[in-house]
């Protein structure tokens, strides 16, 4: 089995993995990072979204071996010293989650959207198109959009 070295949430791990193992399963089963969730088998839902070298990826479309040498950030590594990331805080304040299953992936995708979009005041339409790769069944997206817009302001002012 191939050996990989992956830094996840600041900790470097070396593991033997099956060549077919997906990154999401490596995170969940080998490392116990169960904050990253699996919602479909076709990469449609985005519940498994993490950051791979700073970019959002659906970790069910990445093989663990492809992450060799990479830096992975999961939902569990987002809050620093107990302080929520502005996007996490925004999701809470704006009631952007209900069952919470899509939430980790949605937060990771939303952060990447704000970083890529680069504006502190993205329009509703920009946000809607920016996160359309992640599905939510509970919220109807309205509060998620509001949270992303709110967080974009905070992120630009704090440099988060």
């Amino acid at each position, binding site marked *: 089995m191939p050996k990989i070295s992956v830094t996840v949430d600041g900790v470097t791990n070396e593991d033997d993995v*099956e060549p*077919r193992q997906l990154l999401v399963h490596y995170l*969940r089963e080998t490392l*116990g*990072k*169960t*904050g*990253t*969730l*699996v*919602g*479909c*088998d*076709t990469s*449609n*839902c985005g*519940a498994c979204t993490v950051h791979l070298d700073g970019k959002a990826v659906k970790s069910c479309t990445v093989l663990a071996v492809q992450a060799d040498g990479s830096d992975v950030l*999961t*939902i*569990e590594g*987002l*809050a620093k010293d107990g302080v*929520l990331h502005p996007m*996490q805080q925004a*999701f*809470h*304040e704006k*009631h952007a*989650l*209900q*069952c*919470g*299953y*899509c*939430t*980790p992936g949605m*937060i990771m995708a939303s952060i990447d959207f704000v970083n890529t979009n680069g504006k502190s005041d993205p329009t*509703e339409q920009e*946000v*809607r*198109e920016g*996160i*359309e*790769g*992640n*599905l*939510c*069944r*509970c*919220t*109807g*997206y*309205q*509060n*998620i*959009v509001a949270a992303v817009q709110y967080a974009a302001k905070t992120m630009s002012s704090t440099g988060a």
Partner: protein
Amino acid sequence: MTAVDDHPAHEVGQARPRREDQHLITGHSTFVDNMQLAGMLHLAFVRSSMAHAKITNIDVSEAQGRPGVHAVYTGKDFAEVQGNLPCAWPVTPDMVNPGYPSLAIDQVNHVGEAVAVIAARTKAAAEDAAEAVLVDYEPLPVILDMEEALAEGAPLVHANTTSNKSYTWAFDSGQAGSGGNVDDAFSGAEVKIKRRFIQQRLIPSFMEPRSYVVQPEGEGLTLWSATQIPHILRIMLSLTLGLPEHKVRVIAPDVGGGFGGKITVTPEEVITALVARKLGKPCKFTESRSESLVSAHHGRDQIQDITMSATKDGTITGLDVELTANMGAYLSLVGPGVPVLGAFMFPAIYKIPAYRFTCHGVFTTTTKTDAYRGAGRPEATYAIERIMDEMAAELGVDPLELRRKNWIKHEEFPYTTVAGLTYDSGNYEAATDKALELMGWDALKADRDKRRADKSTKQLGLGISTFTEMCGLAPSRVLGSLDYGAGGWETSSVRMLPTGKVEVVTGISPHGQGHETSFAQIVSDQLGVPYDDIEIIHGDTASAPRGLDTYGSRSLTVGGIAVVKAVDKVVAKARKIAAHLLEASEDDLDFAGGKFGVKGTDKGLMIQEIAFAAFMAHDLPEGMEPSLDSEATFDPENFSFPHGTHLAAVEIDTDTGQVELLKYCCVDDIGNQINPLLVQGQVHGGLAQGIAQALFEEAVYDADGNLTTGTFVDYTLPSSADLPSFITGSTYTPATSNPLGVKGVGEAGTIASTPAIINAVVDALRQYGVNDIHMPATPERVWRAIHSGFGDTQPAAEQTTAHTEGTSNSDRSGS
């Protein structure tokens, strides 16, 4: 100890963000699939590739020999429970239930039915082995169409039945004494129209796939389940598996959405339990999404034949509803009852003097159906709100005015409907007027008319849907009269701890609704204890031993009231202790803000101090038991009846058939609101689901009975880019049937939005001679309706003396 001098702020009515969020936004969730137990085995199922076939052989030899595989079982290995998956709602005494094996034995009856299960060291090993199981099938006729299934001489889904009809359930207001005779109404009708509406099959599509972990323990087991119904499940598992109930513990930890889709006892749950017990090891099964779509229950799937009569000035005189409801291949836990629940909602908010309802439950070789958000009420609301528009078109009147003319007026409540329900309160005028204003209705109408006159390729359609639903399921005596296999009460206990903190146990089992927050808000106000000092405990039959769980917008309207009753008992006991300690008469004590004060003095005790005294028990009234706690059960006297008015504006590109939802506004009246933030969230989510039925979602089978929408690639959940932001508003007409005046909100958005959207689409298309569109209104269907008149019109009135204009389909060949 709590600073007892801090009087809590008024909590009810505050838009407080949820306490549930913290662990979910930081990735410390407890979803079942996150669990790992020592020595745990993983299960994978072999599922039927055939819709209907005899199983002639199952060869498991290769699978058994694969690395990591502990066992392979087929249906024959579990013969002791075959046929025993429960159906708890035998809606008629003669309902035919052919049995529901957890694993098929001799025959499969839908694609995706489980025929074998593998237990292996890893999920991958189990799935690899499942691939190696060889099943030989002898095909039987595929039966997909409900009407063909009911036809004389149709092949049977189940060999042990004599027809594919499971039951016929009927209601007639003439016989029930709640109204007149429909035939009489129809025979003298000035206008009568008949329509057929199709409720396409939907898939609940909770985001968390179903997942189960079973730890066998002696005579019993512990089951962690992604379920809405831990308490009902415990009873059903006990009965199904023959286990002593008190040795069965069910835990519903974080549950990633339900929408009715997690309201049953599933074959996978039962088999996981059986395998774990056979092997004496903890076992886990988590479904893939494609497994979920093909094997978790589906919803809706009804043919609705509706006839409505009216006077030519627009007074509705009679309503006849004939439903054909697809049960799928098996009767699921409450599946047969879904259309029956809907039966009471067809008359909706209208004064209809005569009503008849008949429903036929039918077996087909498809996945079973059961509750899906709203369960029967969205289907009913769709039919009545669609036919109100068709009647308006027939009469040549404004659809809104037809509604105004027929609905129950504010001053007429309480009002007993033709279906026999007594609506306690409502104000349809207020909600409608507010919605029209918020929507900017008049300006939209002007825009619509201008585009019509200009023959624009971007036509505007405006749709209205008013609705009411029955929430707060349910008075137990009513459920009894409907042959439902349980009561409708809910229970709660409240424990004041020595340090002044409070534990509240509830029998409801939330899965995203935010009850920990809203219930704590209620308790804080009622008990006068700070919000943060209150813990809500739920979802584990060990710590919350009694309850009837969460569905049908019953959590607050029944479960919340049980909490209030339990708090009342605590306060009553605390009052006795306070009177004793303060050497005052109980009547001389005020209770406010958590403090028992002696009237006219500054003497008093906080309830936390009394809780401490009750724990110490050094000085209690003679004969009083120590501790300050209580338990209460609430069985509602009546349902609650939220209502609202929903308005939709859609833009249709006549070149492409694309429907874009431009603007959506709803005003819901759910009585008093505990937490407006959570209310809004529920409404938004409900709207998205209802709009999705109108525009996006449909479970489709091919001629061989394969689910062609078996992944999220094909089964189109709306994304953020598919929906606009919604304009929401509220009116407040408190329920009179419970002390909080609450009515329930979980299903409102879903119920009202589907007909609002389709009424808007048809409004835009009516100028092309179209008076119906099959859901979902995909670009292709809309384009065809505009350009070829293909299949989207229905006959005009059977008999009419009213002049009608623009509704004739005489120029629509092939319709």
